[in-house]
């Protein structure tokens, strides 16, 4: 896989539409980043643990007031009759297949 293909695949995974100039710029930057990341191999980490996460404490699982519904609906890009309207996620063919 060449570098140009790499950056396009990575952009797809990242859900980023990039211009041709950006693809060239970021491909170069990512090569540098990969080289920079290789400095991690300089360290002898053979005895390191994978580390512990910060302690967490969850609140009680009890009903509590949530944010105001109207305020939330006002934030939606598009809404209708109290519902958030979204872009179709299935094509017509996929929709028909799911209904049969």
């Amino acid at each position, binding site marked *: 896989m060449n570098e140009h293909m790499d950056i396009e695949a990575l952009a797809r995974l990242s859900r980023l539409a990039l211009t041709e100039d*950006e693809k060239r710029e970021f491909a170069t930057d*990512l090569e540098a980043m990969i080289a920079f990341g290789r400095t991690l191999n300089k360290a002898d*980490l053979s005895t390191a643990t994978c580390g512990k996460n910060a*302690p967490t*404490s969850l609140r009680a699982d009890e009903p509590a007031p949530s944010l105001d519904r109207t305020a939330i609906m006002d934030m939606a890009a598009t809404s209708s009759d109290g519902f958030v309207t979204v872009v179709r996620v299935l094509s017509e063919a996929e929709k028909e297949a799911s209904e049969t």
Partner: protein
Amino acid sequence: MKNNDLTSLSLTALADGLRRGDFSSRELCEHFLAEIAAKDGEIGAFLTRSCSHALAAADECDRRRARGESPDGALAALFGIPYALKDNICTKGIRTTCASRMLEHFVPPYDATVVTRLSGAGGVLLGKLNMDEFAMGASTEHSALAVTRNPRDLTRVPGGSSGGSAAAVAAGLVPYALGSDTGGSVRNPAAFCGVVGMKPTYGTVSRYGLVAFASSLDQIGPITKNVRDNALVLSALVGRDAHDATSQEHPAPDFCADLDRGVRGLRIGIPSEFFGEDCSRCVRDAVLRAADVLASLGAILVPLSLPSFDVALAAYYVISSAEASSNLSRFDGVRYGHRAADYKDVESLYCRSRGEGFGSEVKRRILAGTLALSVGYYDAYYQKATEARARLREELTTILSTCDIILSPTVPTVAHRFGERQDHAQMLLGDRYTVPANLAGLPALSLPCGTGEDGLPVGMQLMGAPFSEALLYRVAYAYERQTKGGDDYE
């Protein structure tokens, strides 16, 4: 009292003046709004000014004080006093942009916990401050919305990513401000602008309502003109919050209690790796002079080594980018943020919205994070980075079992000129001294320690064991008192 006097007063002096009736909260608020109107055209610290909101809050404080309802104790220190926030901290009804086109018009429906706490303490919010987009950067040059200049030299950057917060405090536009620190974003601009900035122990301050960059590293912290002010503000912020599962009660939340105890007998570690060739001579000299001042006050300087220092920056970059690529997936034009006008299906809606809404630095880090988490790279990069993080934490724990604090420069250089650092890797090197505290979850404070090249401020960093904020403030205060003659703003 002359207006200039109000600008230079410490929080303690402002609170005393309000209590005595020398001026009202409204007068104080109007004074700082006038300062912003007069000076911020040149500085560019504010993205949004919340004037009517601020005046209403100030009037409410005056009414409460007249009724005898002003609070006692630590909360009294901030009552009726203006402040401002980095623009990645959510404010109900006031836009929160993260200095990004993606969130240029976002108005949160709720307040961050720190905002709720400061409102409860009678804080008067003047507005929202510029930053590197989504807190990714160390100069504030990556803001998509404004240019912020360093008040100490307008041709130079203020540092970042909380550059607006540090510049606003340094320019006297606001008595204190909050920033956020993922790899040094409070301490770096504090050093560049000659003010005091604290990155607290991870979990000390709730992250609820802070727009996430890298959740295992992010902490909110105060930026102030002096050490005591910083301790007062942090005292109002700390504590467990049910909305943030990683938040904890601080075991010693009165950060002013030990300020006057001095440094006699304290062991101060000086790690050689922080004074290497990448550290400019003027910064090295200024910080070593500061170490000598502390030694003259009775502290014991302990030369030491932190071997994992060399891999800390790479580990930080991998971990922070990986977390950012996940955290920023919510900005897709559907759940949050800018929505592209032209798209053919949901996939192109996501890609185009994100392509149009994010700036270059954010895209670069999302791509880097996606790469680090992808098959073929995960073990070599992300796993290695978490192991390096664990090793660094072990080394710092060992050092801090024999030393009370670690002293180093905050940043290797003084503030650079706009556009001087175009190279991405070179810009990252500015984070070298600050990222260890984030990776290990330790508290770290930056305070001014003289000047370097062209008379620009130099910052020194004090790093301590978890929950040792009071000790960091104590050492910083001893230095500040010795070199500036006490609470110099009082």
